[in-house]
């Protein structure tokens, strides 16, 4: 007749396996974060059962508090597609309303990926020169820079090549004559 503690330990171990499979197969990021936190709590209770309370405290603090919170921060930053509007004409905003061709195009694109479109014309960022645009993309969380080519009248959409979204944007821009998508080649990170 095994005692109660032993049965609990076996049940928790089975729960751990189920939790691990759920983390791998689940699609919703919010749920996955909660599952990771629960996974850590179950692990911590197993540590206590195996008489390692010191490790259990560390596991609870790190695994079920700090790591999920860092994930939450990182993912909440990823939910948006940030566009820097340097064109300053009716391409995106016309008459104080979002009705421009560019806006409709970008809206269609972000709706496809369930992202939130965030258009900025922050003065400090817009004043960054043409040569430093790539640096701006690399160093800030701006995903796309919209500007107008004065000679051809085309609107240039610039972004990083390593951003997977840019490939889809390129495909969608084929239907529009006035839009050209330019990608920056990634430089080697680290000097």
């Amino acid at each position, binding site marked *: 007749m095994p005692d109660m503690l032993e049965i609990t330990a076996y049940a928790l171990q089975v729960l751990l396996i189920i939790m691990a499979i759920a983390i791998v197969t689940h699609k919703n990021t919010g749920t996955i974060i909660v599952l990771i936190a629960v996974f850590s709590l179950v692990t911590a209770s197993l540590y206590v059962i195996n008489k390692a*309370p*010191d490790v*259990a*405290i*560390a596991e609870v*603090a*790190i695994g079920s*508090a*700090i790591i999920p*919170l*860092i994930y939450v*921060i*990182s993912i*909440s*930053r990823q939910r*948006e597609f*940030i566009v820097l509007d340097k064109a300053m004409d009716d391409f995106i905003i016309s008459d104080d309303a979002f009705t421009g061709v560019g806006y409709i195009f970008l809206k269609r694109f972000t709706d496809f990926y369930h992202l*939130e479109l*965030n258009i*900025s014309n*922050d003065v*400090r*960022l817009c004043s*960054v020169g043409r040569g430093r645009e790539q*640096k*701006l993309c690399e*160093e*800030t*969380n701006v995903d796309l820079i919209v500007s107008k080519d004065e000679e051809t009248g085309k609107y240039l959409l610039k972004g990083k090549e390593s951003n997977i979204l840019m490939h889809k944007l390129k495909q969608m821009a084929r239907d529009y004559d006035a839009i050209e998508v330019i990608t920056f080649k990634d430089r080697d990170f680290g000097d």
Partner: protein
Amino acid sequence: MIRQGILIVMLLAIFAVFIVSLSDLDQLYQTSADYFREYGAEQTGSNNLVTAILLDYRLFDSLFEAGILLIAVSGIIWISKHDIEEKNARFMLDKFKTPDLFVTFSRLVYPLMLAFGFYIIVNGHVSPGGGFQGGAIVATAILILYYIDAEKETNIGMIVTVEKFLYLTILIIASLSIFTRGTFFTNVFPYDTHGGSNQAIYLVTLNILVGFKVALGLWAIFTAFLKEGR
């Protein structure tokens, strides 16, 4: 160039200390678990044998563990370093709204978490826990503070500088035992003090220092993450 020189000198010093303590470790690694159970509390003044091993018998390991955290923090800050000042625009911040319920609950829980963290740090030598665990709990409490006030500004540079100095202090306190006992990295106070109450002073001091160092390190890590999105 001067920095690199200092770094090399420090590494050589640590290596020399390592060689010195190696002669003593030889006999310690022969010991079995029973040895710690029998003499642990008596020799180190710690009822928690994990702390006894962490802060006395195998202090060398703990010091390098703390060093690894310092290196990890430096790495994360180096990766998230940017040249453009005020690197991300403020428009990001307005979108980041925390639910009111969460904010209210955080305000309620924050002091309790802080108190619990300090309790675990200070009682590291009598009950489960210690510097690292308590430091992690204190860091979580500070992280909750960011949810209460999203616009809080933190100076990462200062945090990391304080952390480095704490690490140096830990190294100095750990090597003080060369004067009293003749070996590096063990308790400063000699064995035969009454009831080990003197030895507890050393354990509590080291636990508090390690706790603050860990809390500052984790604080620096998630501040770097938070700033990345702003």
